């Protein structure tokens, strides 16, 4: 006997959480104009969709069909742009106003395990000696309810990262979809999760319906072989890096969609009288990322930047924070305009001798 949440009870749960003052967020897919190839008739225009984790008001807004939203859960904790402080300057006096993340509590219903583990991977960095409260205030106020995957696509690689379609890393409650597709088995993992589900306890029931089998995700590469190759200092200057990244065009979409990429930049917007200092996403694949004002750039070629991305995720980050900075969601490969990504690079590395 396990605790079951049926899909048709989800509306009550959402309403209950919202009444309790929590913002309910979940995977949402929307349609937009397609501007794909010019076509004769409006009818056969391919609709473009975009998906992300967004606020929902009722159960129908959720979309649990997709393997995962295009945009990762990171945005809800580390927004692409965020005001940090406003300033007004009068004659030799500066008045500043602090911007704080919204104080409201949230529940993310329907996150994917690879997204949730991405957050857990980044916690140690944002707390390394100096605590980044823009991140932690949101982390502390948000309950993460993950749904185990029963489907995967060619780009998923969580198993290659020693995670799984039903891993519990970073989540407060794990839901396993039922075989009959009518609900989920509830597995409460943390106090925060139990407390959030206490709020909707009357919507749950005991049942013995079997859970659907979790998705099958083939292992794409031998991670340990790759890490030992990366740790070998001679391979830093190997020509492999130039070959594998020749087609990289240096855009930031792989880093911006990645649930674990956390690099950022400060930008002042305003004039000499008033304005705001903002914290914005930045990407190691941009040429200006390490450009010195003198013009010297330690990473001046795209291959050096791609090497930095792989080295940081699988060599430097684990060296300091034990976990690899990758949760295997595959968004970098799924989204790359030139069909590159971590999967291909690590598959190639695992064929090289250390």
């Amino acid at each position, binding site marked *: 006997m396990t605790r079951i949440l049926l899909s048709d009870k989800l509306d009550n749960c959402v309403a209950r959480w919202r009444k309790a003052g929590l913002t309910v967020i979940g995977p949402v897919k929307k349609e*937009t*104009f*397609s*501007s*794909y*190839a*010019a*076509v*004769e*008739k*409006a009818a056969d*225009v391919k609709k*473009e*969709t*975009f998906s992300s984790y967004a606020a929902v008001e009722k159960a129908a807004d959720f979309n649990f069909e997709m393997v995962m939203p*295009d*945009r990762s859960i990171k945005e809800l904790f580390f927004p*692409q*742009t965020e005001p940090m402080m406003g300033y007004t300057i009068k004659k030799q006096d500066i008045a500043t106003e602090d911007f704080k993340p919204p104080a409201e509590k949230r529940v993310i219903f329907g996150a994917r395990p690879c997204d949730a583990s991405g957050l857990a991977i980044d916690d140690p960095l944002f707390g390394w000696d100096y605590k980044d409260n823009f991140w932690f205030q949101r982390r502390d106020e948000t309950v993460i309810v993950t749904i185990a995957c029963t489907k995967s696509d*060619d*780009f998923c690689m969580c198993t290659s990262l020693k995670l799984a379609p039903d891993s519990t890393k970073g989540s407060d409650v794990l839901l396993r979809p039922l075989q009959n597709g009518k609900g989920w088995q509830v597995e409460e993992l943390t106090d925060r999760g139990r407390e959030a589900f206490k709020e909707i306890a009357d919507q749950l029931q005991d049942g013995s319906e079997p859970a659907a089998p979790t998705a099958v995700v083939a292992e794409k590469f031998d991670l340990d072989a790759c890490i030992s190759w990366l740790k070998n200092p001679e391979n830093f200057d190997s020509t492999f890096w130039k070959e594998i990244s*020749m*087609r990289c*065009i*240096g*855009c*930031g*979409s792989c*880093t*911006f*969609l990645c649930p674990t990429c956390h690099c950022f930049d400060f*930008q002042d*917007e305003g004039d000499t009288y008033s304005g705001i200092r*903002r914290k*914005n*996403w930045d*990407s190691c694949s*941009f040429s*200006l990322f390490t450009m010195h004002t003198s013009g010297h750039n330690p990473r001046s070629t795209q291959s050096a930047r791609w090497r930095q991305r792989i080295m940081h995720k699988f060599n430097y980050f684990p060296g300091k924070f034990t976990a690899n900075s990758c949760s295997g969601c595959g968004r970098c*490969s799924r*989204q790359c*305009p*030139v*069909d*590159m*990504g971590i*999967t*291909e690079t690590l598959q190639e590395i695992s064929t090289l001798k250390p």
Partner: protein
Amino acid sequence: MTTQEQYKKRVKELLSNGTVKMVIGYKAGTTADRRRPLFVRTPEEADKLVLDSACIANLSGYLVTEGLLSDEKRVGIFLRPDGIRSINILAAEAQLNADQIVILGFDIVGQEVTALSGEKATDFSELIGSIKEKAPEAPQNPQLEQLEKMTPKERFAFWQAEFSRCIKCYACRQACPMCYCRRCIVDSNQPQWVNTSSHTLGNFEWNIVRAFHLSGRCVGCGNCDRACPVNIPLRLINAKMAQEVLGAFDHFSGMSETQEPVLASFKKDDSETFIL
């Protein structure tokens, strides 16, 4: 023998007799409908080449990678008509010497790949001329007409919603063969013309600046549109600007290597319907 096999043989010839030092083409991608850019330098690598109806990306942007053409050696490249027009513009804007480019022209009609005869950019000028003639009646995006019927307020609201999703990853810029500036205007901070943060205002300004700098230079290859991770219909803006530039100045981008850039030239009798 399919067009793909024909071209494979041709690439092996070009490489083995040293006419070109490299051929840029397509190879199979992670999934059935994806193709990856491939840089072929030895005849053996040519076997990985693929040429079918999924090879739609415009590869001409790779020709302006730093140092690729600086050794005066020739480079082969698979291009559709839009890519050939890009070569003409890049040559007209003194970014490359068209004689260094050996074009392996092809086009996709429905699911079929047809080879285009010609090797140098100038060999394709009447083909591009015919495309220009057909441009006004070419099937437009139904969305373009729908957008034009909207009132300015509705259009502003539409683009406000679309641009609010932009995350300033600049994939649209990096995927475009015409965006070769070493330091883009949004990256220059003295002065900071355009807000770099990706709030809706910053995204609005970025997309306006991008569309303006591509007016009369965009060939409608759709690289930007496909590269956008949040699926903003970028091609609509560029298609509209191409229509505008063709209508106002009879400028069809990429006609030849000597075509003057539309905003760097003028005619004394340019139309001026709106100047008070």
